[in-house]
Structures are given as C-alpha cells and as structure tokens.
C-alpha cells in the first residue's frame, strides 16, 4: 500500500441491518466515497473500521470479492468502538484501513471438498468464503457447511441461509443448542453435529471458526474423523491496533496474528506456544 498506511479510506454506510434478535449484532454494507478506489481482497482477510474521535477496531470482511459494489462487516456491540459503530446511521461516513492479513487458502481447496464449521457470530468471514466458492463453484468438489448458534435468533444472515438451503450443490446443516418450537433443523452443539454429518476426510479441507470453546471441542472431533492438522484451518482474533505487524500486541510466539494470520492451519498452531 503506497502512502500513509494509517490514513483510513473514506466509506459511506449504505445499508444497516440488525442481525440478531438481541440486537447486539449489526451488519453494515459500505461503499467507497471515492468511486475510483480499488480494493482487492480474499475471504478471511480483515479491515480496521474507525470513527475518528472514538477509535478503531478490527473486523473480518463478511462480503466476498465476487460481490461488487459493497464491503460487508458484521459488528458485535461490546466496547467503545463497536457501540459507536452501532449508532451509525445510513449515509454517514466511516474510515476503513485494509485489507490486512492472509486469507483462507482457497487455492489449496481447488478441486477438493471443503467443510466449513462455524458457531455464533464468527460466521462472517465464512460467509465470505461460502459466497466466494459458490461464485467459482466449478473449482471445488463437495461443500459442507455446519453452522450453529445458541438459538435461531442468533444465526447471522438468515435470509441468505434460506437461499443456501435451496442449493443442490451444498450440504447445509444448521443447528441450535436447545430445541425451540418451530425449529425443524438440527439440535445440538456444533462438535456433536460435526461428528454426525462431517464428510469423509478424504480430499477434504476443514475451516473452523467460532467461540474458543467450540473450537476446543471441534478440533478433536475432526482429528478423530481423520482430518490431518495440515488440512484444518481456523482464524484467530486478537486485540490489534496497527494491523501491520508493528504495534506489537497480537503475537502468539513469533507469529503476528495481523500479518502472519489471522488464518492458521492447526499444524501451524501446534508449533506455537499455547496462548489462547
């Protein structure tokens, strides 16, 4: 990136959607104020969103580079910056820096089966991956998505998931922790559902994103099913400031999550000191 890497790109908030029934998750579709601006990214990368005067925070990109005209982010309201983001109105301007970090290894997935396992609001960059793979559907063999939330109202992108359910080139398994009236899909925790419905590990790559407890119990399931650590990928989160490997806070051992990650294979993580 030439020029000053701390200067954000000016973005317009085009669409805002409240994503969850507890109203803690909002999705923002952003477009460049300068229509000439270009922005190349791949699924799994992240950006720093900022409101000058309030602060800056990192978010995974939820849109796919195959979708033109907008960048999508889903923001969980938890701290100062995310609260300020939730107060944004349509048409307002925010700052964006990025794209930062590496991406899901879509080039390695070429001609292979892909299994996506996700829980809660970590689904954002996996939506990006899913949409990307649908747009290049011929490049990938079987695609399986397992996505769980505590209850139906916490699943992201429900309208879109309904469209995904109609696809005949996707095995989609939605699950909630406890049964509720009107729910006709799976009930149970993500690791258990994974054990039940995961495809054969033969020529299959797994991508797992979710809360730490979900990852902790899903990884052993995948290993037991025969997935080698080299073919299991996850995306890590850390408190970050610069996004470019200089501010010194997101490292795990000698790897920076912002520049060496956020996407790591389980084989890579096994070589790093545990610090989750």
């Amino acid at each position, binding site marked *: *990136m030439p*020029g*000053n*890497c*701390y*200067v*954000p790109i*000016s973005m317009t908030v085009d669409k805002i959607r409240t994503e969850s029934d507890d109203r803690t998750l909002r999705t923002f579709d952003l477009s460049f104020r300068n229509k000439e601006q270009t922005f190349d990214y791949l699924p799994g990368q992240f950006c720093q969103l*900022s*409101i*000058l*005067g*309030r*602060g*800056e*925070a990192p978010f995974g990109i939820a849109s796919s580079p195959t979708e033109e005209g907008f960048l999508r982010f889903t923001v969980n309201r*938890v*701290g*100062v910056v*995310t609260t300020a983001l939730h107060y944004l109105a349509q048409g*307002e*301007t*925010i*700052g964006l820096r990025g794209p930062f970090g590496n991406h899901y290894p879509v080039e390695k997935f070429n001609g292979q089966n892909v299994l996506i396992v996700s829980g809660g609001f970590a689904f954002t960059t996996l939506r990006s991956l899913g949409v990307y793979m649908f747009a290049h559907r011929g490049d990938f063999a079987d695609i399986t998505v397992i996505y769980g939330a505590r209850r139906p109202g916490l699943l992201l992108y429900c309208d879109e998931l309904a469209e995904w359910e109609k696809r005949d080139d996707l095995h989609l398994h939605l699950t909630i922790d406890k049964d509720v009236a009107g729910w006709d899909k799976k009930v149970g925790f993500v690791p258990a559902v994974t054990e039940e419905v995961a495809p054969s590990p033969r020529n299959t790559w797994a991508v797992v994103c979710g809360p730490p407890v979900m990852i902790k119990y899903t990884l052993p399931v995948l290993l037991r099913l025969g997935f080698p650590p080299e073919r299991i990928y996850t995306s890590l*989160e*850390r*408190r970050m*400031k*610069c996004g*470019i*490997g*200089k*501010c*010194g*806070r*997101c*490292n*795990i*051992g*000698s790897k920076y999550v912002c*520049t060496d990650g956020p996407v790591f294979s389980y084989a890579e993580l096994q070589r790093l*000191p545990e*610090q*989750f």
Partner: protein
Amino acid sequence: MSKVLRLDKKRLDEFVAALFSRYRLFGPVDSGGLMRFAEVESAGALRLDIANPDESAKGIFFPQTETLLTGNQGEVVPTQEPDRPIAVIGIRPCDARGLLMLDKVFGTGEHNDPYWTRRYRNALIVTMGCSTPRAGCFCNWLGSGPFSTEGSDIALTDIGDAILLEPRSEKGMDFLKGIPCEEASAADLRKAADIKERAESSMAGKVDVSSLKSALDRAWDSPLWDELTGKCLSCAACAYLCPTCHCFDIQDEKASGTNQCRRIRIWDSCMAPLFTKEASGHNPRPTGKERLRQRVMHKFNYFVDVYGEMACVGCGRCIRSCPVNLDIREVLVRFINAG
C-alpha cells in the same frame, strides 16, 4: 571508510553550527538533572561531556506521543513532518544500533511506517564513542561495544583537547566535506585507541549469549517465570527506557464542544494488563507471568525469529532504572544455565 579528521574542541561550535544550518539538531541535554535527548536551539544547551543519557534516543524518531491524524469524520489529514531533516549528536553506539533495530520493525515489511521512515531515513546520526560505560552497561554481550559504529554516519571520539571525526557513511562523508579539518595525527589515533581500549576493558565480564535463543525455545514452562514475576512490579519503566521497545497504542481524542478529533500514537508496554485485554473481557496474557515472559521472549527469542537478532543493545537502562533491582543480565544467565 575514509580518513579520520581532527576537530579542535575550540571549533566544536563551528561543527554544531554546520549541523544547525542543515538539520533540526537533537542531542543530550540536562533536563533538571535528568539527562535526555531533546531538540536544541544552541550549542550551549548540548551536553556532550556526560555518560550515556538516562533516556534513550528512540523518542526523537518514535515520539512518546504523536498525532497521526487530525480532522473530523469527513476529512482526515495526516500530520505533516517539517521538511528539515533531523541530526542527532552525542548518541551512543548502543542507541544508534537500537535505531537500526527499530528501523527493521517500522521501515520494512509490506507496510512501512511513514512517520518513522521519513524521520529516520533522512537523518544524520553522529555517534559519540562511549569512553565511560556506566554501571549496568553490557553492550559487549550483544556483539557490540562502546565504540561500535553500526548505524552511525559520523563517529566521534573525544580525545581531550580535540574530537576525532570518522565518516561512517556516504551521508557522513558528504557532510564532513563542508567542515575544513586537518587529518588526525598518528598520536591522535593512538590516544583514541587507548581510550577505546580502556572503555572496553572497564566493562564487566562478558557472557556468551549464543545459546540463549535455543535455551528460551525450551523455556516456555520454566518455573523461573514464576520466580521472576514475584519480584517484577509490571511498572514498565524498562520498556519506556528501552531503545528497542517499539510497542504502541493508538487512541482517539475529541476536543469537547467541537468536531475536531485526532488519532494519537502513544508508547505502550506488554507489561500493562490492558495491553492484550479484549473488549469481551478475555485476556490472552492474564497475569504478570505471561506478560513478563512476553517481554523477555519478544526481545531474546521472537525478534530473533523475525529479524535475525536479539532486540537488546545492552544499554543497561532497564537495569539502572528498575525499582526492584531486577537485572536482565541475571535473567539471561539463569535461562542460559537452565537451557
């Protein structure tokens, strides 16, 4: 490099004036008893007669606080640096080497840091050989010495009635072309060699740290971390005084009652509990033990992995300023011996 020149001390003002004519000049000053680097307006404020200043020179190029951007949501303007480049005089070899290490962090990689790069890459670094190493100095452990010239454009040696000037880069050589000086005599060079020799032999016993990296590779679960944490106050004085600690925070500020905002960068330290604490409340480094381990590992293990050398120049400031007398040399020796 080219020949060593001799500048009579009576003509030192002339040399400093030449620096003023082309640069914003920084050097050691006495700030109420605290020796630190600051921008000087006249040669008289410079203290070239003192031992290594208490504060390192990193703040000249990486200020403790600086405004990165100002503006409002609609318009954001990056802070402009004055056109006039920076010169530093009286910086010791350890600090000059520290700047080279910081340049690896800020000035390399896919994204270089423009604030650092435009200051450091245009700067003239005039080092002063360290004739009186201080208690706690251990640059000799780290492959350096009190008269090393890494990262120096012009290396000075104080030989009493005169200062010897040795150009160490093309930039330094160009600058010295404008200073009419005689060449140093054989006697001058002998005097300088004696001073260097005396300084080197005055430093405490050197320890071989070549096995430290691999010892730390195996030290993640060492009980030593618990013991060291018992003593450490997590005050971060070591990090702020360290010439190679580069961690920073970025914060936003808004002037009350106006639309004017700024985004500032502030030195930060891995010793602070909030350093890695996430908005959810989760903290990947929850106690002083993980934080102390991070600091030691970052300097003597991770930095080696990423940049090929240890992020320590042996300036001894962390040793001299630690309120509980936690001596990094002892820490390193204990890990080497345990390794």
